């Protein structure tokens, strides 16, 4: 829900806000999603690989694909994976060798840009041994590319430095009708004995094949994610799966992220003897124990940390005040800088080092805070999470691949502290933990940042390690309260003085957007909002209060003047009494066809308007409409106009009760937003009266 200039459009905010929050990184493995930013860079720069001199002929498996009959496809299909294959060999040396190949047919020129490159990455534990690409164009011309033609980069979004080298094979001569073949091979010294096969993509897949070979004494375990369990062909020391006609993931407004809905196969290997490299995580506890061991020494406070902790809490005796002082220090004084070398994508830097540098990434910040708390004998535990909603579900199988962020759970000494906070979970055996994100500067202790609400995280707490479901805000929480005094003049001008009070989600996002920008950008933001609400206007003044104080509500005050707000046609006068938009945009109404995916919003909560509109002297309301009310499972809306002498009083309330709706309940959200859209434009008639009284 929206409704204020600093607002976040609750509907489409997910992507925007998470882009801003993408600074948080826990795991920077060579997985494809994380490389999308770099792909964009390469695509934008138009960097292309040079075809290999001399070249090799396209392999037979690819040329044979040219004859593959295509199934009946939607006319908008831009390309199709004729083959999408991945093979894993768990060698007796303890390495995993991952091999993949793909055959892609370009059906429309629109598909070229997204399909004409292959991306892999050399990381601290992965070495790309082979990358080949071939193109067979409709005119019969052929090109081939290999690892020598690859473009490499170590650039990564929001990371100052990492030692990953991302490799791109970008092909220059792809046209509509081209058949593309990719083949790669990489050797992995695994951290965890697992592999992920993402077989559902943005393009349909005609045939998806996964094969695994493993030594004796090794037991594979398969988990199907977002896909029904399918048949597996099992050999003596191997297995394979074949899927046909996997549909593409399509775009829908406010759908969950692709990671949350794409069909995937997770394969884990349990070995009889201790593996040479990596671990088999039989459950979440195993993983928690592993991470605890990896990070334990890093969070030990040294003398400098102890001194700093004492200095910070000097004079404070109250437990809560001490926690908040340390939390604020790490949240506000330690700047976000991500430097990841070797296993540094997982392992934090030492607390003392982070303190000395005054910078670190998410796991570093959590580590420093843990060390500071520890020196005051306050226990805390990491939570490993994914800031994208719905990626880690309560029934998600155990995997290191799911996460991208680290936060902290701070042990509370009793039942009283943060008694009514949404950020507290009770863990059997550990007691109450305050969930706190030291990387999010706009969510103080006690407030659970919106991207964590109803999310799931791995608690790293020794034997108590397990996946925890986080609480969420209450729909009754008043997050946006707007009070407006308006004067409508007979010449048609509307003058308005508005005070908005923003809490919770609304306050977080307005701070994310506007705290760190200069005044001109804030003004532009304000003007954009008013333009959506009243068209043409003059912004007379505005100010944001408390933007730098995350434990307080944000207050926004502004005054504006909108000429010609009162419309005159003959003797009929009309205007829009709702004045300010309550929803930023109506992207949801762009839904075409039947809804396929759930609707995912960033929040639940309530917005409220209380406006007084002084009518021009000599005019009266012709017909005062009755209240408008709609309530369904998704949300409640209520609007009421009252006349008090020459003043019109408007009260509106919009409460989002569900932030996640399955597709079969899409009509509820549609019904609500259609009503709201109409409400924004609803007009009230005025008539001239002889006696103003």
């Amino acid at each position, binding site marked *: 829900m929206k409704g204020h200039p600093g607002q976040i459009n609750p509907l489409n905010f997910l992507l925007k806000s998470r882009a801003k929050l993408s600074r948080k990184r826990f795991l920077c493995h060579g997985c494809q999603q994380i490389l999308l930013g770099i792909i964009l860079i*390469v695509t934008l720069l138009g960097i292309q690989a040079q075809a290999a001199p001399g070249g090799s002929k396209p392999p037979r498996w690819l040329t044979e694909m040219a004859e593959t009959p295509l199934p009946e496809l939607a006319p908008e299909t831009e390309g199709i994976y004729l083959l999408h294959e991945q093979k894993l060999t768990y060698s007796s040396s303890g390495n995993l060798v991952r091999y993949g190949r793909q055959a892609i047919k370009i059906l429309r020129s629109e598909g070229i840009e997204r399909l004409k490159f292959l991306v892999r990455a050399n990381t601290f534990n992965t070495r790309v041994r082979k990358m080949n690409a071939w193109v067979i164009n409709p005119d019969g011309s052929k090109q081939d590319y290999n690892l020598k033609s690859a473009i490499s980069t170590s650039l990564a979004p929001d990371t100052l430095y990492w030692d990953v080298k991302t490799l791109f094979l970008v092909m220059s001569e792809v046209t509509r009708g081209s058949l593309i073949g990719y083949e790669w091979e990489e050797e992995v010294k695994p951290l965890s004995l697992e592999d992920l096969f993402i077989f559902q993509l943005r393009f349909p897949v005609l045939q998806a094949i996964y094969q695994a070979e493993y030594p004796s004494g090794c037991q594979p375990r398969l988990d199907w994610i977002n896909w029904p369990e399918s048949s597996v062909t099992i050999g003596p020391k191997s297995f394979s799966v074949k899927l046909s006609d996997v549909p593409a993931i399509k775009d829908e407004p406010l759908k969950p992220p692709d990671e949350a809905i794409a069909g995937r196969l997770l394969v884990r290997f349990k070995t009889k003897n201790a593996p040479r490299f990596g671990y088999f995580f039989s459950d979440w506890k195993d993983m928690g124990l592993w991470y605890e061991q990896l990070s334990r020494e890093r969070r030990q406070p040294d003398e400098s940390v102890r001194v700093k902790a004492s200095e910070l809490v000097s004079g404070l005796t109250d437990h809560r005040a001490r926690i908040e002082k340390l939390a604020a220090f790490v949240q506000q004084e330690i700047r976000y800088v991500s430097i990841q070398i070797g296993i540094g994508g997982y392992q934090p830097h030492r607390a003392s080092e982070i303190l000395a540098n005054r910078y670190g990434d998410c796991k570093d910040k959590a580590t420093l805070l843990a060390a500071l708390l520890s020196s005051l004998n306050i226990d805390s535990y990491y939570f490993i999470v994914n800031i994208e909603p719905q990626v880690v579900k309560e029934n998600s199988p155990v995997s290191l691949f799911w996460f991208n962020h680290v936060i902290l759970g701070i042990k509370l000494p009793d039942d009283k502290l943060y008694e009514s906070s949404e950020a507290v979970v009770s863990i059997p055996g550990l007691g109450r933990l305050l969930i706190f994100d030291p990387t999010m500067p706009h969510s103080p202790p006690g407030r659970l940042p919106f991207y964590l609400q109803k999310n799931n995280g791995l608690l790293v707490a020794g034997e108590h390690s397990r996946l925890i479901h986080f609480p969420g805000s209450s729909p009754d929480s008043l997050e946006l309260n707007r009070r407006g005094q308006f004067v409508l003049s007979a010449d048609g001008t509307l003058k308005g003085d508005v005070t908005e009070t923003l809490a919770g989600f609304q306050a977080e996002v307005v701070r994310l957007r506007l705290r760190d920008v200069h005044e001109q950008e804030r003004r532009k933001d304000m003007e954009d909002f008013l333009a959506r*609400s009243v068209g043409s206007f003059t912004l007379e003044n505005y100010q944001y209060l408390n933007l730098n104080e995350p434990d307080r509500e944000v207050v926004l005050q502004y005054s504006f003047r909108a000429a010609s707000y009162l419309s005159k046609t003959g003797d009929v006068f009309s205007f829009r009494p709702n004045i300010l938009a309550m929803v930023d945009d109506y992207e949801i109404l762009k839904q075409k066809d039947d809804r396929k995916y759930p609707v995912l919003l960033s929040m639940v909560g309530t917005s409220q308007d209380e406006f007084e509109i002084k009518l021009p002297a000599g005019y009266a309301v012709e017909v005062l409409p009755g209240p408008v009310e709609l309530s369904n499972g998704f949300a409640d809306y209520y609007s009421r106009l009252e006349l008090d002498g020459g003043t019109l009083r408007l009260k509106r309330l919009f409460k989002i009760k569900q932030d996640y709706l399955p597709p079969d309940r899409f009509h509820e959200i549609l019904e609500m937003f259609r009503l709201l859209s109409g409400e924004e*434009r609803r007009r009230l008639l005025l008539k001239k009266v002889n006696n103003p009284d």
Partner: protein
Amino acid sequence: MKIRCSFRQHKSGYHLGQMILLLILVIAVLDFGLSAQTKEPARPRPPITPEDLAMSDLPELPGAPAVCLYYERIDDNQKKVKSVFKRIKILSPAGRDYANLEIPYVPLLNDVKNIKVVVYETDGRRREVVPETMDKIASRQGMFENRIKTLAIPGVSAGQIIDYEYEMSPGEKPGPLWIITDGVLSISINAVFIMMDDFYSQSAVNWELQDSIYIKKAKYTFLADPVTGVSSGGKYNMAWVTNNLRNVLPKRIEKGLELEVNDIPPFLREEFMPPENAEKISFKIYYLPPDIRSNDEYWEKAAGSWKQIYEEFMTGGKGLQKEVLALVEGATDPEVKLRKLYERVQDIKNLDYVPSMSEKEWKKIKPNNDVRDVLKRNYGYKNQIARTFAALARAAGFETYLVRVASRDEKIFKADIPLFKEQLDSEIVMVKIGNRFQAFDPGLPGCPYEMVYWPRTGTTALTFENDRMSFFTSPSTSADDSSCRQIAKLRPDGQGNLTGTIRVEYRGQEALSRKFGNREKDAMKFKEILEEELLKKLPAGSKVKLKDLTGLKERSAELAAEFEATVSGVIHEAGDKLLLPVYALTNPGRYPFRSAFRKYPVYFNYPYAEIDEIIIELPDGYEVEALPEAKTRDSERAGFNLACSQDEPGQLRVERRLAIKKNLFPVNEYIHLKEFFDFVLARDSQQIVLRKK
């Protein structure tokens, strides 16, 4: 235009008639010249004042996270060393990001050396920092590599001041590098570039003075090259040009120039602004041959060279005459003849815009030496195609001129920048037909006969005829030449919406820019684009579906699209009345000119007209109570009229016309333009009032 500065450089002792020869021979000079670098004494920098230390906000840009108190850059082209010094005051936590340094460099050419960092506490205490420098790959392909020196300054907080400096100098042992691009040959030996940018000129340095941060004070120093690509007898001239830098002149120093500037704000984009390069504050220095002492001389000489080149290219002899005869066979009317010639050259494969060609195909492309080659091979670059048309027209007996123009989509021509080819990048053709001269744009694929694509209209143009160069403005278009006509037949659907058909007819630049801009899209994508475009104009929640599209493939300035449409939520009940806006096909939230302030001129691509003819059926049981008054406004800048009438029972007719009559509105006209759009918005929002019969 003036040559601001001229001085004699070292005598190199080389006098070379041919520039390429110069480039080859100069290698020896540079090789020893670079080895004699000596250490410079520390440069004096402004002291940090108590005011600097106490500064907590920047009044010139309130809310700015940081400010650059002092910036110093020295481009020592004698030693091939670039030195940079920055002093940053951190004003807020977000400003700490300025303590993350990323310095790009090209290892093959140069290296980053002597990085020094000093941090000043708020009390003035000085702390020298030796940060850990990391080196990351920005991109690497084969031997070509771009790298970034990266470092995070530790212990940084708001209130502090950071000084950092570094030098960019030739690497230890770079190899020779030859780069040959279109018309430019450069050689690098020990990281020295000698470039022949253009006819008789060479760019020396380009200082973009605006950064992402406000700069309080900056000092730039340029020390000229000992030898340049335009030297003659060891001499050359130097010229400079400033852009949007008022009341500042550089100071001449020994062997160079020095520029001091104050209060440079960051560059902030605005909607509808001219090309950014034309508005950004910058300072550029060029080298010119010693015999060119003014800009007039430069243009005269450069134009003469251009003339010589194109005349040689257009020489076709008898072969060309034969070609003309064959093409116009049977035609007697000059217009018919000319059209045939134009269609012929439009059928030539345009290598500047070819969407995709295989390497094999590119290898087959031979350089065209003259128009005969172009016609024989049937391919050419855009200017070669323009010259071919000019040659054919001339051979057919038409009075024809080749015209060099500045495409104004990316730049605005400046006469004091002596870069002929960079500034005047395209060629159009003027042909006398009867008593009039008509402009043609044969170098643009799909450009209709007698039409010029908008970037080349109303822009600086140059001819060289009868041994004289002439600047003039290429023909402009009027609002009537480029229109978008919407013909809508709509009826109420009983749910507050209007449904029916909207036919959109694009004419002139409106058609050509859509066709050319989307030339690589397939028909399905093109339809999607048109649907999206219309949808953006309509109220939120509207739906459109393109049913018919005509004119897409024709080489014409016409395009028509017919949509089925639902215009959402425009009819409102108020008592026993129905209200609907007189102009329903708009979304007031898209209103462009919201701000009362404007920094840059408003720049539309071309003058244009919006024409609407809307028929609205009255809902059953309703009749008109009142219709908005017809409104008209007309000025030299823009025109608007809107009328609503009931010509036939049961239906309303709305006629609307908006014309923007020029494309450039200086800042001082912004208020008028905004007022005009305010007027339009208010008139469009007037309500039609219907009552129950």
